[in-house]
Each structure stands twice: as C-alpha cells, then as structure tokens.
C-alpha cells in the first residue's frame, strides 16, 4: 500500500475511534499501532486498495479503522483485566456527543494546545495528525526512540482534559507547523515536505489568510531547496544560487496562494514573510531584486512583530536598497534600541544569530575588508550551525587571502 495514504488518513481514523467512545490518548495509541502494522505488512499489501476494487481511500480507511478498533479493544480489555486485578473500579469514559466541527481540524488544535511545550506539540502533531511513527519522529529529531515515546505520552497526558469540540487558536497551530518546516533536520522523513503536507491539509479545512500565508512561505522557500546547497553540502547564499534550479511550479503556486491571501486585506506576519520570499523568487537575477519593496515589507513585519531578527534582516535589505552605509546605520540603530550594547533577543540572553555576519557583509560592501574579515571570523565562531560556520569561515579566509596578496 502507498505509505503516504494511511498516514494521511490518521486524523480521521482517530476521530472515528473517539466518536465510538475511545478517549483521545487510547484512540491515538490504537491508530499508531494500526499504522505500524500497515507499515509492517505493507509489502504484502493488506488492504484491497490496489487490487482494483476502485475505492482505495475508503478501503484503506476501512482497513485502518478495523485494525485500530481491534487494537483499542485489546488494549482496553488488557487494561480492564489489569484494573480488576488491582481491584480498582473506574468508570469507562462515556461516549461523547458527535463533534460539531471538523475532527481533523480539532486534532490540529489539540496537538498544538498552548499547554504543551513547542517540542511536545511538534512531536504530537507529527504523530497524531501526520501519522508518523514514534521511531520516525525520534530519528528525525536525533533523540532515542524511548525519549520521543515519553515526550509524546507526556504530551497526551497534558491535553487529556482538553475537550475536542471547541475551536482552538490557529496561531498556535501555525507556530508548530512553522517549527516543523524550519528545523532542517535530515532523516528518513522529509520534515519540510511533511510540514507542507500538513499545512496544505489545514488550508483545505480552514479559511484563514495566515494559514495561506504560511503555506505560501513554505512553498516559496521549498522551491529554492535544490539550489541552497552545493554538491559538497556547503551552503549557497541566496545571491549566489543558480536560479535555474528553483522550482518554478512551486513558486507559481506559492505566489498564487499569497496573492489570494493578500487580497483579503488581513495582513499577518506569515503573509509578509511570504511576500518577501515572493519578491526574491520574482527576480531573474540577484541584481534585479526589488530591494526597495523588500524594505517596505520588512517595515510591515517590524510593525507586526517588532522582533530583533526581523530588524536585523531589514538592515540587510536597507544595505541593498540604499547602500552599505545606510545598512550599517540601520544596524547601529538596532544596537542602540536594544538594552545592552550587544544585541539581545527577546527570548533571553542570547545575541541575535547572524548579527555579526550581517555587520561583516555590510563592512565588506563598504570596502573595509580588514573589519569585514575580522567580523566574519567572529561570526563563524558564534554560528549556531555547522554549514553557516563553514560558510562564514570561508568568507573570512577569502578576504584575508585577498588582503595578504
């Protein structure tokens, strides 16, 4: 059976079990067991989906519901037997009324519930909405399977009292999906593609310009993926990317979704970020980038979020639009407005990543190669990831080699 099909059915199968009277945690466990079984016997094709019966989705779903319900009954019986042994009497949860809203949508809200930490919300969303196995999620985030299992069961306990029949906050769901997309870990599971799939599924269920904005943002960045890394794995900055390798179909889709969202005149941060990505996508060469418009979008973003990271990126755009001196002035404005001379992020004591790298770049464009080389080396030292560190170190080495000549 197609591996993606049972996964895409996960939320609706959980919903069937919940409607039949299972609580969320037990239903989710049972569906996970059924998915693992589907993967295990996948080669033997347990469902009639590909045997020509004509209704692959319905048949696979039916198969999953049957297996999951059996797993649920087995677990409940085992549980009941254990409870009898322990002489504890507890009432079975009564079947709730059928939910008035879209079940799958409710699962998105539940898995991104504000009582969960970001890591827990991400893990629970990937399992209960995405239908990934605990092992796949653990591999994607480079932690032991037992750790991920504990994180998920803890998350389920945390949301056990949450009712499934009330709409939640779309913003929390979007933050979780953004995290899944932006954390570029590589494993067997393509998390960026998974985030796009889940955001697409969400966008089909809820009419919200920021959901569309996030989907557009993901598509526009995903379109550049092949061009982002060289064959040796090193990072290729936007200005140096081979734009012929950008995925024009994804760009066209992203731009279309963004335009429809912007037309509704309810701007949010994801739409603004997507607009910036769209302006980059629109430039046939780096030199033809409309930096003036990009600065305007950063002004909008600053108004919406006032995050130091946004203002840092704005300084880069100002440097491109009005020259490196103007960029450096924007950077010093940023330093002056933060509480200490070193720029701090709102989340705590860390300097904003890439601040020194931006300063290095602007000094290089301004012709001060000595300062630029020193700052590139300093930025490499502070870089939060390996690819960026190597890239910055090469920049420092390039300038130092040129100066020594």
């Amino acid at each position, binding site marked *: 059976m197609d591996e993606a099909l049972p996964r895409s059915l996960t939320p609706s199968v959980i919903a069937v079990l919940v409607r039949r009277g299972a609580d969320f945690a037990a239903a989710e466990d049972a569906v996970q067991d059924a998915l693992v079984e589907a993967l295990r016997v996948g080669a033997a094709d347990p469902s009639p989906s590909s045997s020509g019966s004509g209704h692959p989705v319905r048949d696979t779903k039916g198969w999953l519901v049957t297996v999951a319900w059996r797993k649920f009954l087995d677990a409940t019986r085992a549980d009941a037997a254990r409870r009898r042994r322990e002489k504890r009497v507890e009432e079975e949860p009564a079947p709730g009324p059928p939910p008035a809203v879209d079940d799958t949508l409710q699962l998105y809200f539940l898995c991104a519930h504000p009582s969960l*930490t*970001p*890591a*827990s919300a*991400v*893990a629970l969303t990937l399992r209960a909405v995405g239908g990934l196995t605990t092992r796949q999620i653990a591999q994607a*985030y*480079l*932690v*032991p399977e*037992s*750790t*991920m*299992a*504990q*994180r*998920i069961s*803890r998350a389920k306990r945390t949301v056990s009292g949450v009712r499934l029949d009330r709409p939640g906050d779309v913003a929390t769901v979007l933050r979780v999906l953004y*995290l899944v*997309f*932006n*954390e*570029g*870990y*590589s494993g067997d599971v393509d998390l*960026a593609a998974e985030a796009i799939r889940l955001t697409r599924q969400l966008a089909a269920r809820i009419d919200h310009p920021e959901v569309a904005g996030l989907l557009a*943002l993901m598509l526009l*960045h*995903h379109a550049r*993926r092949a061009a982002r890394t060289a064959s040796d794995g090193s*990072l290729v900055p*936007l200005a140096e990317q081979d734009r012929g390798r950008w995925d024009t179909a994804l760009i066209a889709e992203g731009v279309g979704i963004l335009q429809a969202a912007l037309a509704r005149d309810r701007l949010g941060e994801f739409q603004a*970020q997507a607009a*910036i*990505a769209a302006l*980059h996508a629109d430039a046939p060469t780096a030199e033809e980038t409309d930096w003036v418009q990009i600065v305007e979008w950063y002004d909008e973003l600053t108004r919406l979020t006032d995050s130091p990271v946004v203002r840092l*990126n704005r300084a*880069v755009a100002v440097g491109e639009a009005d020259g490196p001196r103007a960029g450096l002035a924007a950077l010093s404005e940023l330093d002056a407005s933060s509480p200490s001379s070193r720029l701090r992020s709102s*989340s*705590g*004591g*860390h300097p904003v990543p890439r601040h020194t790298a931006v300063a290095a770049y602007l000094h290089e464009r301004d012709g001060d190669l000595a300062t630029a080389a020193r700052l590139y080396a300093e930025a490499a030292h502070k*870089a*939060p*990831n*390996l*690819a*960026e*560190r190597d890239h910055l170190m090469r920049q420092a080495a390039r300038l130092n080699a040129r100066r020594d000549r």
Partner: protein
Amino acid sequence: MAKYLLLKHYRGAPAAINDVPMDRWSPEEISAHIQYMNDFAARLEKTGEFVDGQALAPEGAWVRYDGEGRPPVTDGPFAETKDLIAGWMVIDVDSYERAVELAGELSAAPGAGGKPIHEWLELRPFLTEPPTITE
C-alpha cells in the same frame, strides 16, 4: 528543541563549593550521590529530554597519524593535562533557560556531608542544521 552537552570535569573546572575529593566521602554519601545522578537521568527520560549520558575513565592516550603505511603513534597519558572530562550528558530541551535549570539541578548532586557539591558543569550547545527559512 535544542541539544546541549553537560560536561563534568575531573580537572579543569573552577573549584566547587563543597570541594571534598570523593575518596574522603563516606560510602553512604557516595551511594547517595550515584542514586541522585541515576534519578536525574531517569527523570529526564520521563520528560522526554534525555539523549545520552556516559562516564569516562580518567586515563586516556593521545593518538595521531604517522604517515602512509605506518601505524598511528600513541602517547601519554600526560599527568599535566589541565582539562580532564569525567563524563557527559546530552539533553534535548526547549530553551537555553531549561538547559541552565537542568545543569543547576545536576550540580546540586550531594557530596560530602550529604550537602550539594555545587560543582561547575560546562554547558555547550550543539551546532544544529541550518534553518530552512533564512530571510
């Protein structure tokens, strides 16, 4: 969702407050210390924040390549090595603040007199994969 390495040093860290060498503790104090460390790791497994933990023998050797077709050269151990790692724990947490909180708890492991050692632990963030969204 960030990984940190907690490094415990045999040597090289600033002096702890309760700085009595382990061989001067009572056997019960040593047991209590080990129990504390085990409980700490078990608790992190339950919260879904544990990645790995290992203890290292104090004595090791230096090894280097010695040219094509020749066996590697080994040397040491050198008694004068200033910095000596005793072990590590890798955690996967939501924030830097949480990492500091956990390191603080680990540093409170009981030592001589059953009182917290207040030893200095080194906290080092992992380098990650680059983010997908860059501008």
